[in-house]
């Protein structure tokens, strides 16, 4: 994009009354909006000189219509000045820092010069400390009165009420030089401007009225407030002119002040908020800007876009990880602008002439005019058609789009995909790219954005393409990686015993798009290892210990050591660590993103076939322990119960050993927790042994595909101790969790130990205890998301301007150096080998739990 004009800086300042009057295109004289014919009243708050919001009417200032007129300011002449409530504090500071008689700053010349010399200074604090003890003006020697502010806007001088007029005169008399001492730039912010004599009125475009179905008009909150101000202001004027008593005038004056105060901020403390007829507090200026739904965060920091689509996502393992399946319907609705050149003019013409799917929707002429492509307009378009035109055609295969899932917690929550138009109504996503989006397919929806210009398209392709994000900058490890069934598939596929016939081998290789068949290595059969090696680049060398260690002696289990030599899998069955991280990351680092993507695509396609042929299922049997183990488990539970009883007896006899720093009761709890956790560990060993390594559930847990040993224990053996706040359950009734237990029973069952398993089922009390633990974690999750969300917002806000400079130093937007070299060594966490290239030795003493 060619940028021809840039905003260089924005100056903030106060409006002077003269400026307000000069800017104003309408002086408001009538405290009303529309007349009976619902036509804006001249001099009213909807005056046509302040812009138009009714279709058909024209702005009296610029002649624009509802679409073209941006709106113009108006103003209200306040008969008596009022304090701008938001500046009350500043006014107080100025009054306190100046003399009421000679209007000079209450410090000596030398002090002022000294103050100006200071580099970092909080003038307000400095002035306060300097004027605090002073009782007389250093210049004219008059006594300094005590100035007080009664919030929000009432000022007192020696406990005598000050009228805004008096304050304004005081402020106006302060010299420019003195104001500069106070850190106020008199050119932009004369303090008397903080006392309003003319009130600026925002254009009608800022406060549009809406027409309800009944035909009634409903005015904006700001308009309501302005009407209030106008009405009281007029009454005040009438009373002054009629020579009403001072008391009545001051009352009305006070009322104008109230309305102006609430007009600026309806949440000002110490005054009741102005309310709508319905009792709802009005949303005035301050409320419009503030907070999450305010102008700044809702409209300025976040903007709405066109050319986007949203629908449910569903998995498609057959498309590439860098693709996204787009429903036909979506593809027909969205457009891509194509700049016509001599090389693509024929294609573009085809789009214009076509009645069906890849069709041009609009054509933009070199003069900028946009023409809708209709059968009747075709000829006219093609008559002058040529290079320089832009054709907006429908979305097609191969187009570049951005794909996003909220919450966008990190940059890989939005990535660049290539379009693949597919039948159906959902976005299709390769399940391998789920982790960065944190997506699943239980009804998740995602957003798609079609890129609208070449620069953005290029940037997206180079910086945001899916395969460039395979390694996460968070930890330098793969985040886009095959998981679950792919891992299981890889394990079975590369096991020592896996062999395939020639036709099977051909089929598998074909799935990966490989047409070369290697020589068989097992007689006339092909080992899984051999076929898998076909996917690996020649320079790959890896040696890792498998997560799956069936026995202590590695000789007994040939699959336990994974060795890849020159791109050939020599020994070992792959598991999650070797497949997801070691191989993939090494390919990414040595061969680059494209090759890494190829590896993911081909290996997953092949493994998909493997796992489909091989089959993998778990059933109740997989979570059933044999009778003998069940007996042992019961014994184990009995032992545990007895141990706990013994500890309780000791506690009651006070013979229990006290742990340092704990009371006897706490020591007992600690002891029991130890006993129960030991019991669970013992149950774990039992389960693992009983289920064995041929058990698919255990295999999946061990190789890191899905599930864990804890899952298996909870299903096959027992759930174990339930806890709330890391302690055994105590809450409920007095001295017990449920009425089914004796009061003050400290035993296992009474305090939330669950002997049952998910398979055997839970007793009613166990079920209740289990849900106590469940409730806690539910509540915790809810609190955690809110707290971590806010923390992340703060982190982002504090660090967002920090950028790597040319010399690899990290600097913020002011150019202040944060780090002399990024991370101490300048390495990118994505590119560096995280294991061997830690930037700095972080000394860590032994911290035991």
């Amino acid at each position: 994009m060619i940028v021809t004009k840039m905003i260089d800086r924005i100056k903030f300042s106060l409006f002077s009354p003269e400026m307000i009057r000069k800017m104003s295109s309408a002086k408001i004289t009538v405290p009303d909006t529309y007349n009976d014919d619902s036509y804006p009243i001249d001099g009213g708050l909807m005056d046509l000189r302040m812009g138009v919001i009714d279709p058909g009417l024209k702005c009296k200032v610029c002649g624009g219509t509802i679409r073209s007129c941006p709106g113009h300011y108006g103003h209200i002449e306040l008969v008596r000045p009022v304090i701008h409530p938001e500046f009350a504090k500043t006014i107080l500071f100025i009054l306190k820092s100046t003399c009421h008689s000679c209007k000079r700053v209450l410090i000596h010349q030398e002090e002022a010069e000294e103050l100006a010399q200071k580099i970092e200074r909080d003038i307000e604090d400095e002035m306060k400390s300097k004027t605090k003890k002073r009782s007389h003006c250093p210049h004219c020697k008059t006594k300094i009165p005590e100035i007080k502010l009664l919030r929000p806007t009432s000022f007192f001088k020696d406990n005598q009420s000050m009228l805004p007029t008096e304050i304004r005169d005081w402020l106006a008399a302060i010299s420019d030089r003195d104001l500069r001492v106070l850190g106020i730039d008199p050119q932009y912010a004369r303090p008397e401007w903080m006392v309003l004599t003319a009130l600026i009125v925002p254009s009608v475009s800022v406060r549009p009225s809406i027409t309800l179905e009944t035909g009634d008009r409903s005015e904006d909150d700001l308009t309501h407030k302005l009407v209030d101000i106008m009405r009281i202001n007029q009454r005040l004027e009438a009373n002054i002119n009629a020579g009403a008593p001072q008391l009545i005038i001051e009352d009305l004056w006070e009322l104008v002040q109230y309305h102006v105060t609430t007009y600026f901020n309806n949440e000002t403390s110490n005054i009741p908020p102005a309310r709508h007829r319905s009792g709802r507090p009005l949303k005035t200026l301050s409320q419009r800007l503030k907070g999450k739904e305010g102008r700044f965060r809702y409209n300025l920091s976040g903007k709405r876009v066109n050319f986007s689509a949203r629908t449910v996502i569903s998995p498609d393992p057959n498309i590439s990880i860098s693709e996204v399946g787009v429903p036909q319907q979506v593809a027909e609705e969205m457009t891509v602008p194509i700049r016509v050149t001599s090389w693509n003019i024929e294609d573009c013409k085809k789009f214009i002439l076509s009645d069906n799917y890849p069709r041009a929707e609009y054509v933009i002429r070199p003069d900028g005019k946009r023409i809708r492509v209709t059968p009747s307009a075709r000829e006219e378009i093609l008559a002058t058609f040529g290079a320089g035109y832009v054709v907006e055609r429908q979305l097609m295969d191969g187009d570049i789009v951005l794909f996003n899932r909220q919450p966008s917690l990190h940059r890989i929550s939005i990535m660049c995909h290539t379009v693949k138009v597919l039948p159906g109504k959902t976005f299709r996503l390769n399940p391998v790219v789920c982790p960065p989006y944190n997506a699943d397919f239980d009804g998740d929806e995602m957003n798609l954005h079609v890129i609208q210009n070449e620069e953005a398209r290029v940037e997206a392709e180079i910086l945001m393409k899916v395969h460039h994000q395979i390694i996460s900058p968070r930890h330098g490890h793969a985040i886009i990686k095959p998981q679950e069934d792919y891992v299981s598939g890889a394990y079975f596929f590369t096991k020592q015993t896996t062999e395939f016939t020639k036709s099977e081998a051909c089929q598998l290789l074909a799935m990966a798009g490989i047409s070369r068949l290697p020589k068989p290595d097992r007689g006339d059969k092909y080992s899984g290892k051999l076929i898998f090696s076909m996917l690996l680049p020649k320079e790959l060398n890896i040696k890792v210990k498998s997560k799956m260690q069936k026995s202590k002696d590695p000789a007994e289990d040939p699959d336990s050591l994974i060795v890849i030599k020159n791109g050939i899998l020599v020994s070992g069955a792959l598991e999650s660590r070797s497949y997801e991280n070691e191989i993939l990351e090494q390919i990414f680092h040595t061969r680059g993103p494209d090759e890494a993507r190829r590896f993911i695509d081909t290996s997953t396609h092949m493994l998909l076939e493997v796992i489909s042929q091989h089959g993998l299922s778990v059933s109740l049997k997989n979570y059933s322990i044999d009778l003998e183990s069940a007996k042992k488990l019961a014994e184990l539970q009995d032992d545990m119960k007895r141990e706990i009883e013994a500890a309780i007896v000791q506690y009651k006899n006070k013979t229990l050993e006290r742990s340092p720093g704990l009371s006897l009761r706490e020591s007992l709890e600690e002891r029991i927790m130890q006993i129960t956790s030991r019991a669970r560990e013992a149950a774990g060993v039992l389960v693992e042994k009983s289920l064995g390594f041929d058990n698919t559930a255990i295999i999946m847990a061990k190789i890191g595909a899905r599930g864990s040993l804890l899952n298996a224990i909870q299903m096959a053996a027992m759930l174990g101790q339930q806890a709330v706040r890391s302690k055994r359950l105590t809450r409920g009734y007095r001295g017990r969790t449920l009425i089914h237990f004796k009061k003050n029973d400290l035993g296992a069952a009474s305090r939330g130990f669950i002997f049952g398993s998910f398979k055997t089922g839970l007793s009613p009390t166990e079920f209740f205890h289990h849900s106590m633990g469940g409730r806690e974690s539910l509540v915790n999750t809810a609190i955690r998301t809110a707290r971590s969300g806010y923390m992340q917002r703060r982190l982002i806000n504090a660090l967002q301007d920090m950028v790597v400079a040319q010399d690899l130093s990290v600097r913020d937007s002011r150019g202040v150096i944060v780090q002399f070299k990024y991370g101490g060594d300048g390495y990118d966490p994505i590119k560096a080998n995280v294991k061997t290239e830690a930037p700095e030795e972080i000394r860590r003493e032994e911290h035991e739990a």
Partner: protein
Amino acid sequence: MTSKSKKNIEVGEAVGIVAAQSIGEPGTQMTMRTFHYAGVAEQVPTGLPRLIELVDARKEPKKPIMDIFLKEEYASNEAKAKELAKAIECTTVDKVAYVEEDFDEKKIIITLEPSELETEGVKAEEVFRKVKAVAGSHVEQKDNIITVKAPNASLRTIRRLTNKLRQVQIKGINKISRTLVVKGKDGKYFIRTAGSNLAELIKNPHVDASRIYTNDVQEIARVFGIEAARNALVREIKQVLDMQNLNVDVRHCMLLADAMTMDGEIKSIGRHGLSGEKAGVLARAAFEETVKHLINAATKAEDDKLIGVTENIIVGQTVPVGTGLVKLKMKLG
């Protein structure tokens, strides 16, 4: 192997945002559970609450903990280490005695508990001496009862004196409320304490001041300076994440710590710290306290030079980060 320069971070990379995301994103996966240092302190915040505590740069952590490593002869001698631990532990009158006031007689009675005296390793005379130093001359001791007479004092001063006497420190180092000797993985003993007082402890000749550690980052900044505090911050942040099994590159923690300490004092992440001191008015207004920042900007006639990210998003210009940093002027036509 790729050459060194190829591993370098790209110029213009928004490393700040990457760091913030890398630390913030796993926040949702962190637990809120508290940690239990056996025998020293319970409910030590870990996970998200601790991370927030660090990032907020609180004046003092909720549960300050120290690890005091010892010089050789103490480090390998458990008895000596325990002796030192006991000596360090701050003992107040309250801990070893029962203090009550008698308003009729206008006196305060301090009943010493012999068993507590023994466990704390304090002698009755010591208590007497310390009490006397605070309460003045009208102090008498009879066996395990110390009586403080205040015949002319008002009831209110008696109550005040009682409370003061309860807190009188008999021995040990202020703020160290509990100590425990722990055997480290290297077989050496060290003392873990609840409560933290670096300044006093590094003076102790038996303490290895080069290895002493506290989780109170602010205190490290006060005693050892900002560089040490920066390192402690990196370490604490990394440790919190490691304990949750969350893998985050140290570089991100380092950038966060460097940003917090770059001005020579520890600044919090948030409106009272880093974000509140940003250059741009619009950036500050968009973060928190919108109206306040706009009003102040107007009175001071501030300029927003649009140098930050937020400001440029607000006005709809390219952001000065990454490719947006590259400037190119082209002659048109």
